[in-house]
Each structure stands twice: as structure tokens, then as C-alpha cells.
């Protein structure tokens, strides 16, 4: 297990290294961040001073080496735009994104899993067919459109929920969370539902497919013949066996919820990391882009690892060391 962890971390390191190079070159190809950041009234000499201040007057390879050197000391560099350490900036936005992602995933699981199970067990019922048709909508409607519709209906027309923003927050474990306050929860509802819609449909369909695959298996028939209670058959024999693909998807989708909830965060003006990264790309704020992408690589590596551990719990035949 330990060797497997180490091996994965080394792989992650290489991915990170490759990514920093890509970002460094990419941002340089797009344009010069100084032209975006600087006050238009600045003259050439002032512009040169700013360029030197950010170290952008150095050749690109030298900038890269300087960046690596900083990295060895745990310094990701200061954001060009915010004038503060890039890492701190990202960590500051992380709770907002995390609580949105976790809530969305929670909704997706609580709704998607039982409905999928139901639709799989009783595929011929009208209600199952309705559920499946609805899930197609969940799949195919674009997030931004659903988000705007949600705002139109629930905030503008009905006035039940706030249109956007995060609402008041409360401190817990040294960070600010909004799910701890009533107003905050109200703010959380619409964006979380918007994010959850696609994931719910995904989990629902996966579960249904899994159920239909497992049900005709011999061991289910045998369990039935043996007289095992239906509840136990579904709860243990069916559910546990269909969980492996579902867990994989949940893990990866959780990652993408955190990393790429840009659209939802923009529409609902949710001050999370997704909004930060899209702003940073627009402003060519290289230190933030690099730090963010590095964190995402680490996040996905860790998530994959957790998924693998879940496999071993769900299916005792899977062994981490042997596989690695």
C-alpha cells in the first residue's frame, strides 16, 4: 500500500512538472499580462518598471527556473493581479467551492441512487419510464440555461430564493462556511441543485444499468432460491456489486465538480475557485493559473487513490498492491 502511494505521488510530480511547462509557455503565447494589468495612462518607462517587477523581462526559461526555485521553498509566487500569494488566494476560495461541490454531490446521490435502483428493479412501470425520460433532460439541458431558468423562476418570479451570492458565513475550523447559517443555506440551494442536475442523471442511469446487469446473475437467482429476504438481496447483493462503476464515477465527478464548476459559479456569482481561475485566465495571471492547475492534479491523484481504496472494500478480490 505504501509503495503504491509513493508510486502515485511520483507520477503526480511528473504530471505537475509537465503542466507547469505547458502553462508557462501557453500564457506567454497568448499575450503579455502587463498590457492587461497596467494603467493605460502609464508611459513606456513605467511599463518597463512594472515588467521588471514581475520578472517578465527575463527570458522565459529563466522565469521558469526562478519559479521552480520558489516552488522548492513552498512559494508559488504572488498573483500579478491581486498582489498576494497565489496559493493563499486559492485556499481562501476553496471552502466556497467545496461546500457547493459536496452539497451537489449529496443531492445527486440521495436522489440519483434510489431512483436508479427503482427504475432498474421495475423497468416496466410507467413511473420508471418517466424517471428515465427526465434523466435525459438532466443530461442534455445545458447547465447555464438551467441555472438562468432556476433564477428566473425561483428568484425573480416567485421570489423564494436569493438570485446569487454566498450569503452570510460562519466560522468553523478556522474557515468561513455558509451552510451553517439559514440565509447561507438558502443561497446554497439553487447553485447546488443546478450543479447536481447533471450528476444526478448520470448516477441514476449508471445505477439502473448496474441493477439490470446484476439481477439476471446466477448468484441473485441462487439467493432468491435460498429464500433470502428481498431487502437483503437488493441492499447487499445487488447494490454492492453495482457500486464499483458508480464509485469510480462519483470520485471523478467530484473532482470535476471542484475543478470545473465555472459556469455555475459565474451565473450564481459564487465566490469559489472556478470563478477565480476563469478570471485569472482572462487576466493572464500566470501564478494563479499554475498554482490552481497544480492543486487540481494533486486533487485528482488523491481522488483516484481513494476510489481504489473503496474498490478493495467493495470487492475483496481487488488488491491495491497487486494492481499497482
Amino acid at each position, binding site marked *: 500500500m505504501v509503495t503504491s502511494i509513493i508510486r502515485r505521488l511520483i507520477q503526480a510530480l511528473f504530471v505537475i512538472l509537465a503542466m507547469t511547462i505547458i502553462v508557462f509557455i501557453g500564457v506567454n503565447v497568448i499575450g503579455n499580462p502587463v*498590457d492587461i494589468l497596467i494603467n493605460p495612462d502609464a508611459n513606456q518607462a513605467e511599463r518597463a518598471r512594472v515588467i521588471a517587477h514581475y520578472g517578465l523581462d527575463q527570458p522565459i526559461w529563466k522565469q521558469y527556473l526562478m519559479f521552480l526555485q520558489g516552488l522548492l521553498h513552498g512559494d508559488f509566487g504572488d498573483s500579478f493581479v491581486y*498582489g498576494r500569494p497565489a496559493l493563499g488566494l486559492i485556499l481562501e476560495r476553496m471552502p466556497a467551492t467545496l461546500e457547493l461541490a459536496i452539497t451537489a454531490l449529496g443531492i445527486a446521490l440521495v436522489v440519483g441512487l434510489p431512483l436508479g435502483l427503482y427504475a432498474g428493479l421495475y423497468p416496466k412501470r410507467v413511473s420508471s419510464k418517466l424517471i428515465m425520460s427526465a434523466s435525459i433532460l438532466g443530461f442534455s439541458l445545458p447547465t447555464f440555461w438551467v441555472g438562468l431558468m432556476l433564477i428566473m423562476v425561483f428568484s425573480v418570479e416567485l421570489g423564494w430564493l436569493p438570485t446569487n451570492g454566498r450569503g452570510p458565513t460562519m466560522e468553523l475550523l478556522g474557515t468561513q462556511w455558509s451552510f451553517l447559517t439559514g440565509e447561507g443555506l438558502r443561497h446554497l440551494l439553487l447553485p447546488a441543485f443546478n450543479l447536481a442536475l447533471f450528476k444526478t442523471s448520470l448516477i441514476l442511469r449508471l445505477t439502473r444499468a448496474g441493477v439490470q446487469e446484476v439481477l439476471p446473475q446466477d448468484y441473485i437467482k441462487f439467493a432468491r432460491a435460498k429464500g433470502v429476504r428481498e431487502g437483503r438481496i437488493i441492499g447487499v447483493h445487488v447494490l454492492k456489486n453495482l457500486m464499483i462503476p458508480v464509485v469510480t464515477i462519483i470520485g471523478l465527478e467530484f473532482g470535476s465538480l471542484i475543478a470545473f464548476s465555472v459556469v455555475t459559479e459565474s451565473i450564481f456569482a459564487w465566490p469559489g475557485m472556478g470563478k477565480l481561475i476563469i478570471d485569472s485566465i482572462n487576466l493572464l495571471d500566470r501564478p494563479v493559473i499554475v498554482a490552481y492547475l497544480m492543486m487540481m492534479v494533486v486533487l485528482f491523484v488523491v481522488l483516484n487513490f481513494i476510489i481504489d481504496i473503496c474498490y478493495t472494500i467493495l470487492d475483496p478480490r481487488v488488491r491495491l498492491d497487486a494492481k499497482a
Partner: protein
Amino acid sequence: MTAKVLQRAAIALLGTIAIPAMASAQETPLTIGMSTTPTTLDPHEDSSAPNNATSRHIWDSLINLTGKSSNEPELATEWKAVDDTHWEFKLREGVKFHDGSDFNADDVVASLLRARDKPSQGFASYTRNITNVTAKDPLTIVIETKVPDPLLLNSVSRIRIISADCKDASVQDFDNGKCAIGTGAYSFVSYQPGSNLTVKRNDSYFAGPSHWSNVTLRFLPDDGARLASLLSNEIDIIETLPADGMERVASSGNLQIINGQSSRFAYLGMDVSRDVAAFATAADGSPLDKNPLKDVRVRKALLMSINRDAIVERIMQKNGTVADQFVAEGYAGHSDKVEKVAYDPAAAKALLAEAGYPEGFSLTLHGPAGRYVKDAEILQAVGQMFTRIGIKSKVEVLPWAMYSDKYSSGDFSFFFGAWGVNTGETTNPTVALVATRDEKKGTGRYNGGGISDPKIDEVLAKASSTLDEAERKPLLEELSTQTFNSLWLLPMHYENVVLGAKKSVSYTPRGDKYTLAYEVQPAK
């Protein structure tokens, strides 16, 4: 452990539900939806418009720059130029910072020098002429400039005065509120970067307390989100009302559209220096032996072919005003001698033939996408109008991040640009857009067309060092006359400031597009 957390959460939940009910009847909250996001509360880090508009709520400057770009007393009550390079400012007596400490000359000295010496150099264009700032006595300061600087007052109006105790504070100290202490109309309550800033009324503000007890600035760059907040009555006033929402706002019973002219001047620039323009070819695509844009008749024909009224009316949905020169009437440097060029495609065609291009030619127009009001759509329309007089045109738009570098360094033959005339007078746009490019003098930074007009350079040099207002005025007008009668730039329009607001508030839009809570009034 979990039980404890849950318990705490439950208590918190109850607590917040109770708060709104307890709010007193006299509360007069105001929420503003800003269309851009400030990067920090540190008022000297970066002088972008959202940062300066935000800092204006907490801090004051020596001079108040009004919505019409005139200078009025703020922390300084009076000022005079002692000689060509020394200015003396008398400071207001009895002003206190939000933390109760007294305001005096030390704070001014510390603030001006901090703005000048910050490594980010955000305020360099305003502090470049300041060699020294000294306190003559606790209520008098003297600013020494390198050269005679007629724009010093404008520059000083942009620099916020912080407490001298915070002169070495970092950006973080401002963002977490530790140093967010000013003398302004509102004091700091909380700041969530990228989301909102909350401030409350400063009851002892020297110019009288604000009508609003609590002000929240919400940063909502997404058009849909901003509009929805207004429609659902969460926000009292929003900046840059999206064109798609105008009808809804106009037809709703309790909302209104507030419209005013801004100082942002949009223009078309072109290569007037090279002998062969890279993106101008003969109609059949073969290279031209000379650059048609160097001929003033061609430039005039181009301008005549553009129906600017229609662009403003239809594409911009009246969110603009047709322009003929840098500044509108009422601003310093507006010239009556600028010849107005009217829309006349037939005459344009004739003029083009006279200039030796009866068959027209082919031209690529470059512009940014999403930077200015309807920028890409406007350029498309201009392209079509050119085609009507026989100029085969192709339109290419780029994201601002890619465009900004290229247009200012002269990579394009014909391009769309806009300039916020920050100072409300004409040397500011002339220095940047029209003056001959000169690294040493710092002129012509955005002169992407390679304009070099000795007469303009000469008048500009004179205007930039003349302190006397009466002497300066004709020079400023001369800059407009010379630029637009030679058509070095084709004037397009001024962008309008369009806000959406509840009918319960009234606001006079500012030329610089800032939305300041102190200037928002309850409707009578």
C-alpha cells in the same frame, strides 16, 4: 464531536434567522451591483476603475474629482501653485479617521509617497512628476514636481489618503480590514474578495453623513446574475444594465433605466505611417504599391461611409452618443473648429475615386471582443458599410488578452479602440493615442497607427507645461482641431453609462462610470 458540531450549527441557524427580525426601522440599507470586480482594498496597489471606485467609499483624497472631471475641495480646503514646480495644499481641520485618530499632514505625505513607491507602480502615471512631498506644518503640505504639471490636481484627486500608521502595510492588511481605515463617508465592516464589500455610515463624515446606514457593494460581472438581482429586488442599483434586460426594466413598475454620457471615447485607428499597409490590398488581393490610408481623402471617405447614428441607435441600443472629437461639449479642450463629417455614402464613393481608388480596395479590420460596449458587432457593421462604398472588408476580432498588445504596437492596419478620458481634458488622450511614439518622453504608447504630426507634438508639449488655465485652454482645443480635421483617428462615439435602479433611488451617472453610494440619493 459530530454531535457538538451539529449542536453548534443549530444554534448558529437559529441566531441568523433571528437577526433580520431585530433590525431597527431606521436602517436605510443600499446595495449596489458592480459590473467589475476590484482586486484588492489596498487603495494604492492598482489604479483600475473598480479598485478606485471601491476605495472611494472608505477613503478620501485631497481633491474630490467630480462626475464631470472638475476638482473640488475634499481633504484639502484650498491649494495654489507657489511657483512652476511647487504646490501648496491647506488641509481640512478636525477630520478624524474611522478609528478615531486625527488626520494631519503626516498621513498625506505617507499616502502620496506610498502610492508613488509601491512596487506594483499602479499609480505611476499620476505620481511620475512628484519628486517630493513635505509637511510644512500639521495642516499644510507642499508637493514638489519635476516639471510644471498642469494635471497635478487631477493626479492628486486619484490618490486616497490612508493613515500614516498603515504606510508599510501589505495588501493583506487592507483586505482583512486591519488597515481599511479611512476618513471617508463609510467605514469598513466586511470584505469577501470577489464577492462583496460591506461598509456602514460614518456619522462624523466632514461633508455630512450619508443617507444610507449600510452599503453593500456586490461584484457581479456576469450580466445575467446582475440583472436577475435587480429584477428580484435584491439590489437597489446595478451598473452596466445589459441591453437584453432594458425592456424588462423599462416595463416593470418599480424599476428605471438611468442613462448618462461617459468620458470613454471610441475611435477607429489606422496605419498612417507605413508606405505599404500590411492588411490593405487591391480589391483582387494583389498588393498595393502605396498605403491608401495615408491619404486624408481616403480617411474622410471611410468616415463618411459609416452611419454612426445607426450604430448608436440600433447596435448600441442608444447606449452611446455620436462623437466628433475626444471630449464632449463642456469638457476642457472641446473645439468648435472640428469639422463634423456626416454620413454620405455617395459622396464617400466619389471621394474615394478622386483619391485614385474608383474600384476601392480590400481591408482587414481588427478589434477586441467583449472589451467595449458591443465592440465586435460595431466592427462588423463598419465592415459592411465599407463594403457598400466598394471597400472589400474582412473583420477579425480577438480576445482582449491577445488584442491589447498587438494594436498598441502597430500590428494592424485598421483597428477599433477606445480611451477613457480620465482627466476630462485633451492632453490625456493626445499623449497616449496621437503623439509621436517616443520611449524617452513616454508619448504615443497606444499610437498604433504611427501618427506623427509635428504640430500636435509641439502644441502638446506646450499644453503639458502651461499651468495657467486661460493660456492652456486654446492649446487644448488646438489638439482636438488638429487631430480630427486631419482625421488621424476616425471618431466614433462616447459610450454611455447605463444603470438599472429601483425607482426609490436617484443617481446622476459620472463620466468615469463609478457608482458611488454617497452620490446615490433617495428618490423624492
